[in-house]
């Protein structure tokens, strides 16, 4: 048992927790932040992605002690003043989800990608950089569109190349 102090979504938290507790387990079961999902628990699927000091990590593969003294942001911490984060908004508008199980991890991964990627974001880059996040429903197409839509809103049109729309493609 250790006394763990960390910042979670901006709030200072102190709890006594057993050492083998995973960060994902701590967030869900000790803090009730069940937006962070556990899909595989084997570091494969990315459903559990949160930000640790602004960097995306698979929280099922971090011991709570490793995160002690650091700042964690979960999907619950993204919206500000009742306003959805641009990535959340874009997932809704672009139909970037079906069952929604992968969505919190997708959105946390995408917000970090947009915030930190140094170059121009395009469909290829997004697909490569998001390969640590698996979705069993959507076929990824609308997830990529959602991310590029949000990226354009956040970074401006100069940093983002939108894919040619399916509609434009069929029209030649």
């Amino acid at each position, binding site marked *: 048992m*250790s006394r763990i102090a960390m910042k979670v979504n901006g709030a200072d938290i102190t709890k006594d927790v*057993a*050492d*083998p*507790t*995973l960060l994902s387990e701590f967030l869900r079961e000790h803090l009730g932040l069940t937006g962070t999902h556990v899909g595989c*628990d*084997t*570091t494969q699927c*990315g459903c559990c*992605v949160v930000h*640790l000091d602004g*960097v*995306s*990590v*698979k929280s099922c*593969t*971090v*011991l709570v*002690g*490793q995160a*002690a003294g650091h700042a964690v942001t979960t999907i619950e911490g993204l919206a500000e003043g009742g306003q959805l984060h641009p990535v959340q908004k874009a997932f809704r508008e672009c139909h970037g989800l079906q069952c929604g199980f992968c969505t919190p991890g997708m959105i946390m*991964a995408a917000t970090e*990608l947009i915030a930190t990627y140094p170059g121009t974001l395009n469909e290829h880059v997004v697909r490569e*950089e998001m*390969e*640590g*996040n698996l979705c069993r429903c959507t076929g990824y197409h609308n997830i990529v569109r959602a991310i590029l839509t949000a990226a354009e809103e956040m970074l401006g049109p100069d940093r983002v190349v939108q894919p040619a729309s399916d509609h434009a493609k069929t029209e030649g």
Partner: protein
Amino acid sequence: MYPLVYHRPKTLAEAKELFGAGADATFLSGGHTLLPTMKQRLAAPSDVIDLTAIPEMRGIAVEARLLKIGAATTHAEVAESKIVRDAIPVLAGLAGSIGDRHVRHRGTIGGSTANNDPAADYPSAVLALGATIVTDRRRIAADDFFTGLYQTLREPGEIVTRIEFPIPDSACYAKFRSPASRYSIVGVFVARTGKNVRVAVTGAGASGVFRPAEFEAALSADFRPEAVAHCSVDPDSLLNDLNATGEYRAHLIRVLAGRAVAKPGALQSFK
């Protein structure tokens, strides 16, 4: 998970003391091999000693034509480092090709080298570049360090603190990834310094990373992709598993060696 005690020492001395005091202690760096292994019950340490808060384990620098990277440096830090990109560009490329971006944010060069997974990327660079593994008690040449599948010369309680890479004239890496696991089925790292060429193959060897002598001789004589066209590795010395047969891996070694040499300085990842 099952009971364990987590420690985060601030000095090497403290880490060694904790290791000695634990019934069955182990070190933790990025945890991206250790924690999945523990969940599978393939490891059940009593004490987990996190090495990442120890200052000696961090930092990237070039001194006397040696690129020195602290063991707790993450794959993402190596991939983004200007020092690494200037000194050995393909090493930054290799680090940026490991797993996915979340794995790269946690996994470390020291953890990967100490673990010596037969499919890991770093051991090929460490061996081909003739790096030195620096520990809390000695310096070990890469040629001696990797001794078999998940086996190294490291003694119980010995801490890898940094890796020192001699800077070559040029180096290149070509790998073929399993689309499911993201690990290399075959990766070929080629380093050239003057007329001396060293080649290391990961993902394929039945006893882990190895240097294919015939390829090194051919490329030392003639540093062109064509030089390896007739080189071969005995398929019986290679892994034969659900990802690929030994014959297929032997074929990939030749193809990837040729592709690597065709693009000096470049990381090429195929899937």
